[in-house]
């Protein structure tokens, strides 16, 4: 006996589904099976209008175990991680966390990561920040640095190699 998605010939990936749902449970979110497709997540999704992310569909596909289809799709990289879906889900499921899990799977499987993500990752690995502190322009068009505003300089990792090793450890352990 089997179930096949005739549009993609995909079949339910039961083990992977369990892995992702276990991750949700660990984070004290409910598993995807409880979703009743009210689509409150999608109604408020910041990535939906421009980038067509449909979080409720992500949850539905996970319910059916059709995970490869999502891992191979660019759509998972459009999530802005605003966590609104998690905050407002009436069944306490967190589509945003499912998307994190899917992105991890994509990376683990050696999928091409969108360019911006790579540069952000590089920046985190080298200076510990998503991006370096930029100077700001004021209303009267003057450029100010942190120093000009009396802010202390940003601290950066003393030993970048050790810092990177620590980060990689976290990534491997899938914390």
């Amino acid at each position, binding site marked *: 006996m089997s179930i096949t998605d005739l549009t993609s010939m995909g079949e339910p990936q039961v083990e992977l589904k369990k892995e992702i749902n276990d991750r949700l449970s660990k984070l004290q979110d409910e598993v995807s099976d409880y979703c009743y497709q009210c689509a409150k997540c999608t*109604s408020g999704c910041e990535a939906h209008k421009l980038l067509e992310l449909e979080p409720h569909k992500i949850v539905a596909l996970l319910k059916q175990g059709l995970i490869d289809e999502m891992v191979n799709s660019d759509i998972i990289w459009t999530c802005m991680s605003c966590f609104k879906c998690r905050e407002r889900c*009436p069944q306490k499921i967190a589509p945003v966390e499912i998307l994190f899990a899917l992105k991890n799977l994509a990376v683990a499987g050696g999928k091409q990561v969108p360019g911006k993500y790579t540069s952000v990752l590089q920046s985190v690995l080298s200076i510990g920040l998503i991006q370096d502190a930029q100077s700001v322009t004021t209303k009267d068009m003057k450029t100010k640095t942190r120093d000009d505003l009396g802010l202390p300089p940003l601290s950066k990792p003393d030993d970048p190699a050790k810092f990177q090793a620590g980060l990689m450890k976290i990534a491997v352990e899938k914390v």
Partner: protein
Amino acid sequence: MRRIGVFVCHCGINIAQNVDVEALTKYASKLDSVVVSKSYKYMCSDVGATLIKDSIKKHELDGVVIACCSPRMHEHTFREVVSDGGVNQYRLEIANIREQCSWAHSDREKATKKAKFLVRSAVAKAKLLESLETSTLEVNHDALVIGAGIAGIQASLDLANDGFKVYLVEREPSIGGRMAQLDKTFPTLDCSSCILTPKMMEVANHPNVELLTYSEVTGIEGSIGNYTVKIKKKPRYVDVEKCTGCGDCATACRLKDRINSEFNMSRGKRGAAYMPFPQAVPLKYTIDAEHCLFLTRGKCGDKPACREACDQKAINFDQKEEIVELKVGAIVVTTGYDLLDPTSMYEYGYANSPDVITTLELERLISSSGPTLGEILRPSDQQKPKSITFILCVGSRDETECTWCCRIGCMSALKHVYLLREKLGDDVEINVCYTDVRSYGKGYEEFYRTVRGMKTNMFRGRPSEVQNMGDHQKIDIFDTTTNKLFEITTDMVVLVPALLPRADAGDFARLLHLTLSGDGFFLEAHPKLRPMDTFVNGIFIAGCCQGPKDIQDTVSQASGAASRVATILSKEELEIDPLIAAVDAEVCTGCGICVEVCPYEARVLNEKTKIAEVNDALCTGCGACIAACPSNASIHKNFTKKQLLDMVDDII
């Protein structure tokens, strides 16, 4: 030595599939004191009962063990069978080999072994079971109904028409409850007050009904058949004998139109001297002690305006709270429900805009006795709205608010669509954001179809937020039927909020010793077979205090509860189950610990003998006193230490 018979039931295949019943029967026949052991496919059938009765006679049995389902299912049935056969009914012991054995295990061999232990242990107890006799107590034939919404009114009328005296207590100034707030009822669109008001009048004028409005239950003692209930009658500051309901006091009140009207869900105003609604029963005015200037500050102009205005001299600021004591045989609790305050669902903006309202507020706007006299006007500018959007399941079916379905939200919203279309014509745009439309009742699906044909924009989805844009509201909704995100700009948003237990349901449950279910509503004794009973004998529940339901179900349940009460009240005497606590007077030291731990006030310390006593009518056999007694003087009849320890010895 006892002569015990063991009867093993197959329960069709429920037991037989996982327990070798023949082997069990054979095993039982060899146990000490067992003189006969038989099995049958359905022991609870007439044939099974005859088998037991015949065996009792043939083998001169004086003890019976039946290995079958849980005693909660059939103990009562088998007690009657055993009694008919000529053995004292309390010399029956049930070995539960279904719920606690065959249903719980899949390994037939091990399950059979466990069943043998269970039967052996039951036989051990049967050897020691004593014959007990039921005692009786006299029944008070009056009833108390708490809460005078449609459920309370229906239950009171049924009981009153059966010839019983009924006290109907209501904490608000008028009876009528939630149904009085409604304009029309689904799916028949009956005018709510047209069908409710006659019942209100009937109950108020019924010779067997005594209305106690503006009153609350504050204490209860006693048990089934003989309850003593304390009722607090709050002062109305109006002599109801003199008040003619003319309204001169309300017109004169210095706070006229300055206090939010609870009846109108704060969409309208009233004064401190007020009548909640025009059809109120009793048609008497009340002075709101929380707001009245004279009562709160001791001064209202030169003289209280209402008192001056009243021709009948009915206003009496010297009225005091009064406690009355009633004696009744049984009680029906019909205390109704609260609605979720949608402020907690901040994303829907209920607190941000006056144009985001709830269904019950809309109900008051639609009602001709409401604040707008039935005109649909947008609260912010009192203009006719051109677009109204409903959001269903606000806080319902929601793990963060109320996990249950409110059971009336879908239908009430559909009813509103119908009524709005009727009142505002085709010009108004009506949008409904639903998750699932649950139109499960008689005529409901047909009504849903009608509304679908009334130019209703149905969106299958749930908005994430309602944005207040000042003169209108904006909603993004992803519709899962078209897979499209729609932006709705609308004049008014109607939220369909979850239905909650009364805020004070917990306190009230403690007062009456009732149990709450996980959701906070009153718990019924059995969800299917005893839906109106509670775990307190003689107290019944009906309507939304037991769980969300529509008017149809509420009325049915209320009549059901009334019938359950009538069963008790129609008896002259009630039998008391003798499986309760007793005191070994030789051993009791009179320490009084049992008196303190007894949750049912069934324990008293005899001042003369200094020995604890049990009030058989109050004792429920809960066992608290037995556990608490330091000198083993408290015993539970037919659950004595010797009986239980022998059972344990034989099971291990």
